[in-house]
């Protein structure tokens, strides 16, 4: 399984020379199995470049949305496979008690926000509300769970070939927790990340930023490391970078994080274009 980061930024695209190293596109991750089956995690602006690399011979692509905040769907209308006739595109996302996923996606994919409606796309589109529990997609086993973030939001654990990727791009496991994160099943997202080979986890805020933004649905760098530690993740990629953190700032914050927390697993800040082989 190969995991490629096409967009690592949270909240808002931040293009420019000052973010060239870690990237300015909002979140999009490609997961490719040995047989070339493709999963796409989230549809931020990074999905545009990702879509251009999918060969014309590919007949099916599955897009797994963690939630429908703008930075996770903004690139969807620019995802090339949606415009390929006979291409089978499956979009998966969290259910809501109030409105179907298709209807909620349609709010963005319709005028005046976007000129092309979902129903007018030439591909063969199927929209699925992701079930709680396992679902099989080609060679992948996908496990989804609701996680702590405003509005319906899921995290994913993707397993193939005996390796596991856990994707928690927007996640505030420390909400309401005064001391260390709780164990024994009492921390959001815990089962998704347990003993995972690669944990891609929200690390948007410094401690000082978090104090002003409790409940906004994001983690600090230190809580991301703590979450990785209690779930025994084997590698942590800090993700969903704050728009205010340029390359110099982010590199400094990561160095300070590693020096301070002495993590038991490799920790790095996700870089656009980075590829992990599991």
């Amino acid at each position, binding site marked *: 399984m190969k995991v490629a980061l096409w967009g690592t930024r949270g909240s808002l695209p931040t293009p420019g020379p000052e973010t060239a190293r870690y990237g300015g596109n909002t979140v999009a991750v490609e997961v490719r199995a040995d047989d070339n089956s493709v999963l796409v995690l989230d549809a931020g602006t990074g999905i545009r470049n990702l879509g251009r690399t999918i060969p014309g011979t590919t007949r099916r692509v599955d897009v797994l949305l963690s939630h429908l905040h703008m930075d996770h769907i903004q690139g969807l209308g620019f995802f090339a496979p949606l415009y390929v006739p006979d291409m089978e595109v499956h979009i998966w996302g969290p259910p809501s008690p109030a409105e179907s996923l298709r209807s909620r996606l349609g709010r963005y994919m319709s005028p005046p926000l976007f000129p092309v409606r979902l129903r007018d796309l030439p591909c063969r589109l199927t929209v699925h509300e992701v079930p709680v529990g396992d679902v099989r997609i080609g060679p992948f086993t996908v496990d989804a769970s609701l*996680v702590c973030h405003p509005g319906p939001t899921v995290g994913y654990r993707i397993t193939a070939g005996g390796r596991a990727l856990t994707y928690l791009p927007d996640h505030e496991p420390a909400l309401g927790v005064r001391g260390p994160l709780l164990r024994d099943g009492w921390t959001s997202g815990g089962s998704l990340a347990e003993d995972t080979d690669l944990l891609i986890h929200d690390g948007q805020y410094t401690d000082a930023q978090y104090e002003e933004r409790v409940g906004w649905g994001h983690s600090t760098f230190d809580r991301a490391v703590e979450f990785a530690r209690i779930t025994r993740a084997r590698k942590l990629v800090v993700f969903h970078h704050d728009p205010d953190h340029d390359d110099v700032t982010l590199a400094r914050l990561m160095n300070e994080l590693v020096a301070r927390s002495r993590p038991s697993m490799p920790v790095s800040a996700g870089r656009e274009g980075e590829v992990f082989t599991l």
Partner: protein
Amino acid sequence: MQRELEIILTRQLASYLATPAFIVDPEGNLLFYNDPAETLLGHRFDETGEMLAREWSTLFSPTDANGAPLPPDELPLLIALRTRHPSHREFWITGLDGARRHLVVTALPLVGQAGRVLGAMALFWEGEAQ
């Protein structure tokens, strides 16, 4: 075992409330009670831990106003779980510290998306002394 997110958030909410709160799973097993509840129940949660429904529902010796024992299925939490509707009543317990207390209890079922019954939460108050 991973708890449902709604239960995790309910526990975190309860841990901030000044109102005593008690949370059970879909089978009625005790998952958590908060610090204010410890005062009324006479024992710290850290010491009792999670308990089976049949244990906690008799542990506090609940009775009605006349001192007649209340069977577990007449307790608001278990009624809320069974009926999926809020339940309210007053009764008396004997705390683990031996003190007899009059409780006013409101229990509500916790139902997640797709109708998943996640458990129930009771909020309670100390009533007038008998």
